[in-house]
């Protein structure tokens, strides 16, 4: 492919196309060629009456996604599987080494550390975020005047994400001038060195992650407002107290939303990169205490240029995420309640509701 790109760029250069536009135009030309082949194939298939016009239209409409999938997801997955069996520094040609990368991974202490950091972070921050955002959503669901102001306040921090959040919290947790230790000093306590202490760095990043629960809160709030009022009224008539109603109505009813947030939150937590990168590059996170998995993968690929080993790490990461997601899905049968599992009952209730 490199040769085709170079050839096209040369050609565009001879046509006096601006240098910065040559790579993208080469890509457009190649994509146009692929698309032309696809169109010709579909046109032929319609003419030969193998497929209907609608089917052809469908595949043309979804072709952007399919091409994108092959180019940026499916193709790269297969290619990285191949690369994971090679040793490659981007300069010399890739050298086939069999399972050596995977064997190395099993005994790599840095990888062990990065898995420990990442799993600890996910296992602690996801439950904390879930409980906190659900609790806040329950509070926000009350009918207090000015509740919209509170909702906005809780949502605002989730707009300060990524680098800005990391930079802010490096200073919030600055041992000498920071907000956290300033507050502790008012109480007469000398605070820890937070991000600059190997034992405290990860807990500090977990606290940071709780600052942005506003995004999840909004999702829970929508789920809470979807719950039919009649359920509560019926329960109250039957004499159910506040906690009974919370436990037997609210939680089962929002359990699909909790499930959605746990799955996405878990995958998101496993992908943590920015906090580790920014804090470490600013002198924090000593003794690899913030060496998140993706940061270690990034270092291997783009600092050490070990493309083969990084690809093996990517595949191990992929399998880890799949296993974790599968476990959460398996476990969900015990605590997630779906209305559609009892369609008849639901139908009866809806009819009763409309009869009023």
């Amino acid at each position, binding site marked *: 492919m490199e040769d085709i790109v170079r050839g096209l760029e040369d050609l565009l250069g001879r046509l006096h196309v601006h240098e910065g536009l040559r*790579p993208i135009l080469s890509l457009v030309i190649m994509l146009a060629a692929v698309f032309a082949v696809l169109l010709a194939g579909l046109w032929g298939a319609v003419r030969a009456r193998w497929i209907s016009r*609608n089917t052809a239209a469908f595949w043309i409409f979804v072709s952007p996604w399919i091409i994108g999938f092959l180019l*940026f997801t499916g193709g*790269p997955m297969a290619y990285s599987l191949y690369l994971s069996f090679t040793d490659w520094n*981007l300069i010399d040609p890739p050298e086939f080494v069999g399972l050596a990368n995977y064997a190395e991974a099993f005994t790599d202490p840095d990888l062990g550390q990065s898995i420990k950091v990442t799993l600890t972070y996910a296992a602690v921050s996801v439950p904390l975020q879930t409980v906190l955002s659900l609790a806040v959503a329950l509070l926000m669901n009350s009918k207090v005047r000015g509740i919209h102001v509170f909702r906005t306040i*809780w949502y605002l921090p989730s707009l300060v994400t990524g680098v800005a959040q990391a930079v802010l919290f490096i200073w919030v947790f600055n041992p000498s001038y920071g907000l956290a230790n300033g507050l502790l000093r008012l109480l007469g306590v000398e605070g820890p060195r937070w991000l600059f202490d190997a034992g405290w760095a990860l807990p500090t990043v977990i606290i940071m992650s709780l600052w942005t629960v506003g995004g999840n809160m909004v*999702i829970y709030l929508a789920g809470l407002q979807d719950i039919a009022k009649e359920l509560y009224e019926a329960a109250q008539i039957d004499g159910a107290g506040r906690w009974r109603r919370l436990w037997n109505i609210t939680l089962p009813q929002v359990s699909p939303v909790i499930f959605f*947030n746990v799955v996405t939150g878990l995958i998101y937590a496993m992908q943590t990169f920015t906090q580790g990168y920014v804090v470490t590059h600013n002198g924090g996170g000593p003794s690899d205490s913030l060496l998140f998995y993706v940061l270690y993968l*990034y270092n291997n690929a783009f600092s050490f240029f070990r493309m083969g080993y990084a690809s093996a790490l990517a595949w191990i990461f992929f399998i880890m995420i799949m296993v974790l997601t599968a476990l959460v899905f398996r476990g969900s049968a015990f605590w997630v309640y779906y209305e559609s599992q009892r369609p008849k009952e639901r139908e009866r209730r809806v009819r009763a509701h409309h009869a009023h």
Partner: protein
Amino acid sequence: MSVPTMPTDAERRGPLGTRILALTLLVVGSAGFVYPFLWMIATALRTPEGVAHAGAALWPLQWQWSNFAEGLGSFPFLTYLRNSLLSTLVPVVAVVFSSSLVGFAFARIRARGAGVLFAVVLSTLLLPQEVTIVPQFILFRNLDMIDTLWPIIVPTFFGSAFFIFLYRQFYLRLPEALTDAALIDGAGWFRIWFSIYLPLSRPIIIATAVLQFMSYWNNFFQAAIYLTTDRWKTLPLALAGFQSVNGTDTPLLMATALVVTAPCVLLFFVAQRHIIGGISFTGSK
């Protein structure tokens, strides 16, 4: 026959004590949540000496407005701003149109294999992008696009699985009669999408555009991989390297971080209703 009385408003809200407790929790929690944000603004307006004295307090301020000009002036701010805008706004437009097109096909065109393909689209939602980052880097290297914004922009032209899903759900809620009437009138699928469904998509277009803007404005992972020189650096990347340029001048750093965050906060206040609608929509169905 006794008729059970409906609970009154006061009963539904619960006893007074619980309500006061809830309100207290709300106020205290909100204060704690917004405090770091206010502290960030306060710090941005202080002198370095003021920061050393203030500690956790929001007051006093030295009103150093020059921090903003100075912080931004310490690096080629306008270049970074241009790069951030380019690598955010082009993907916003691209992803809105491409996802709408694909989502429309999944919602309205009946075809063999559509169900299986949609399952594949959904399954990619669970796939973290980090898994494919090495081969993607090599792909863009072969395409001669390293240290340009193209690796960030190009993939968005092919739609995003998540937004395709959102558009499909949105279109499924529109009446099917829309397409039937147009088909009888002899309109093609492309015209039906472009002149009937796209104009009806305003709420979902705003929601996806805002979500896409926020995620790409803050995009750090890809920027850190593909952008190496000052010419194409984006604001988050510049902010991450701020300390190596300016030492530890906290007020300058906070001022810069505020400016980087400002567009998202402004956008939130302009499009609050749509954002909340969009985010809730993602969780509910």
